[in-house]
C-alpha cells in the first residue's frame, strides 16, 4: 500500500492533530517532522485511525485502544484527515 507523500497531500489542506475537535475520529495521513520515528514507535503510523479524547496542553488520543498523551509539538507533526 502506498502512503500519500506530504507533497501530494498538500500541507495547506491537511489538518494537524491539534486542529481536530475533541471526540472526533480521524485517520493519520502523513507524519512529518523530527519526532516521526518516536511517534511511529508509539503507534501513530500512517493509515491508523485515532480518536482525539482531549485537547489542551498535551492532547490525548486513543490509538489502537491505548490512551496516549503527546505534547502539542508532537501533535503538530501528525497530519490527519477526517474518517469518512
Amino acid at each position, binding site marked *: 500500500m502506498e502512503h500519500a507523500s506530504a507533497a501530494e497531500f498538500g500541507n495547506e489542506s491537511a489538518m494537524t492533530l491539534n486542529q481536530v475537535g475533541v471526540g472526533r475520529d480521524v485517520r493519520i495521513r502523513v507524519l512529518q517532522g523530527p519526532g516521526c520515528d518516536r511517534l511511529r514507535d508509539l503507534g501513530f*503510523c500512517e493509515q491508523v485511525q485515532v480518536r482525539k479524547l482531549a485537547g489542551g496542553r498535551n492532547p490525548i488520543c486513543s490509538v489502537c*485502544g491505548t490512551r496516549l498523551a*503527546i505534547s502539542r509539538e508532537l501533535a503538530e507533526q501528525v497530519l490527519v484527515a477526517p474518517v469518512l
Partner: protein
Amino acid sequence: MHAASESPSTIALIGNPNTGKTTLFNALTGANAKIGNYSGVTVDIKSGETYTPHGKKLRVLDLPGCYSLRAPSPDEQVAVDALTGDLPGYAKPDLVVCVLDASNLERHLQLALQVIALQIPTILALNMVDMAEKSGLRLDPAKLAAELGVPVVPMQASAGKGIIELKQALRFPFPSAAHAMWVPGTDDAEDTRRTFIRNLCELAARRPDAHQLTFADQLDDWLLHPVWGWVAFFAIMFAVFWGIFSFARIPMGWIESAQGVVAGGVESLMPAGDLRSLLVDGVLGGVGGVVVFLPQIVLLFFFIGLLESSGYMARAAYLMDGVMSRAGLSGKAFLPLFSSYACAIPGVMASRTIGSAKERLATIFIAPWMSCSARLPVYFLIVPLLLHENEGSWKQALVLFAIYTLGTLSAFVVARVLRRKLGPDHTAHHFMLELPPYRWPQWRYIFRHVLERGGSFVAKAGTIILGISILLWALSTYPKADGDGADALAASAMGRIGAVIEPVVRPLGFDGRVGTAILTSFAAREVFNSSLAVLFRVDEAAGEEATRNSLRDRLALAKWPDGTPLFTPLSIISLLVFYIYALQCLPTSVVVAKEAGSWKWALGQLAFMSGFAYAASLGVFQIGKLLGF
C-alpha cells in the same frame, strides 16, 4: 543450542513499558520485584532463576520497557545492550520472551518484529488477553504464530494463567531464530514492517470497527479535567495523608503500650544501674522512638502501592506536566519525584526514564526534597507538639500536607534555577505518556511489597539504629559525674558536644541537646528520634514517675535553663523546616553519585541542602522572633 550445565542458558523478557514483564518475571522466578500500573517501574535489569519442564536451570532477565530498539533514554539503552550482549556481566540471551499487551498488538508488534529481526530465538507472550477480549478484540494466536514463525503463548500473568503454557515453551531445544520475512533487504525496512503489522493485525487481531467509549475514557473525562482533575488530585492526596494519620493511631498505641510493658518489666526485674539504664533508656528508648512509627510507614507504602497499581499515577503525571514545565521539568519527572516521597533512592534510580540528560540531573538533584518516609518519624514526633492535645487528625494531616507542599515547591524553584544554568538540550525531548487502563489493584503484590518495606524498616531499626542508640547512650552516660539529671548529662561526652554545638544552633531556636540530636542524624535522619529519646530521658522539671511518659510528653515539658519552654511553636516550625530541607541520608548520596556519574554532584547536593536547611531554619526563627512569636 544447548548450554553447558555449569552456565545456565539465559532468557530475557522484553516488551513495551507497562505490559506486565515484571509480573511475569515474578511469576516465573518466584521473586517479589516491584510492579506498578505505569511505565518505567523497572529501570534496571533484574535477574532471577527458573527451571525448564525437564528441570534445567534458566537465568531470567527482566529488562526495562522500551518502545523500540532505537533507545533514546538510558533505561531503554540498557535493554538494547542486554539483547545484543553488549552489557558487561550479562551473557547474550539464548532466548527472548517478548511480552506484548494483547489489546495493543498494532503498537507492540513493532518492537517484537525488531527483536525477531535480531535473529535471536523468540517467543511471544500475549499478555492481558482477558482485557483485550473484554474490549471486543478477536485474537487468533495460532494465525499470529504461523505468520511470524515464532511460538505465541496467550496468557494473563497477573492471574497466573498461561504461565504453565509459557514454561512448556521454554524447553530445550529452544526454537530456532525465525526468518524475518518482512525485511525484503531494501532501505525501507521500517515501512515494510509497518505494512506487515497492519496486515497481520487485520488477520489475527480484529478490532471492533467503531471506537468504544470505555469506562477509563469516562473516568478520565473527570480525573484529567483542567478543574475537576485538580480537585480530585488534591482530594486524593489529602485523603492519603489523613488516612496515614488516623489509621496509624491504633497500632501506634499498641506498640507504645507494649514498649511500656517491656520497660516496666525490665525495671521491676533488674536493680537500678548502668545495665538497666542501657536497656531501658538506650535500647528500648532509642529503637522504640523509631519503631513506633512503623504503622505510618506501612500505610504510606500501602497508599502509594494502591495509586500505582490502579493506574492513577500516570493521570497524576499528566496533570502535573503543566506545573513541572514551569520548573523546567516535564511530566516524565513526576514519577521519579513521586517515588521519592517513599524513598529518594528508588526515586533517583527511576529518573532513568527521563530522556533528557539535563532534566534528569535536575530531577536527581531535587529528589531528596520530596519528604521521604524516613522523615515521617521526625514529623510525627514533633507535629503533634505544635497542636494542642487531641486535636482532630485532619489538622495534623493539614500540617503534614503543608510540609510536603513546602518541600515540593522549593524543589521546583531550585529545579528551575538549575535547569536554566544547565542550558537547553541539544535535541528536543517531547512529552509523551501512556495512560494505562484503570485496573483493580493487585492486592497480593501490594501487600507483599508493603511487608517487605516494613520489614526493611524494622531491620534498619534493629541494626543501624540500635547500634547508634547504644553509642548515644554511652556518650550521654559517660564520663560520670556526681549529681543527677541535668548535671550528669552536662558532664557526659554528649553534654560537652552539646555545649560546643549550642552556639551554632541557638540562633535556630534549639538547645545543645537538640543540636546534638541533629548532628547524630546526618547519616540517617530517623536517628534524631533515638537521640532525643536518649538525651531527654531525664527531665529536670518532672519527678521520677513522669520520666516514663512518652517521649513527646517529655519534650513538651523540656525547658531552657531559665525556665522558659524549649519547644515553642516557633522553634518547632524552625525544626520542621530544617528537617524538610536537610539531606541526612548517606545511602542517597551514594546513589546520587552513581546515577549522576560524579561525586561532585552528590557532595554539592549535600553541601547545598545542609546549608539551605540551616539558612531557612535561621530565617524562620529570627524573622518569627522579630514578628513577636
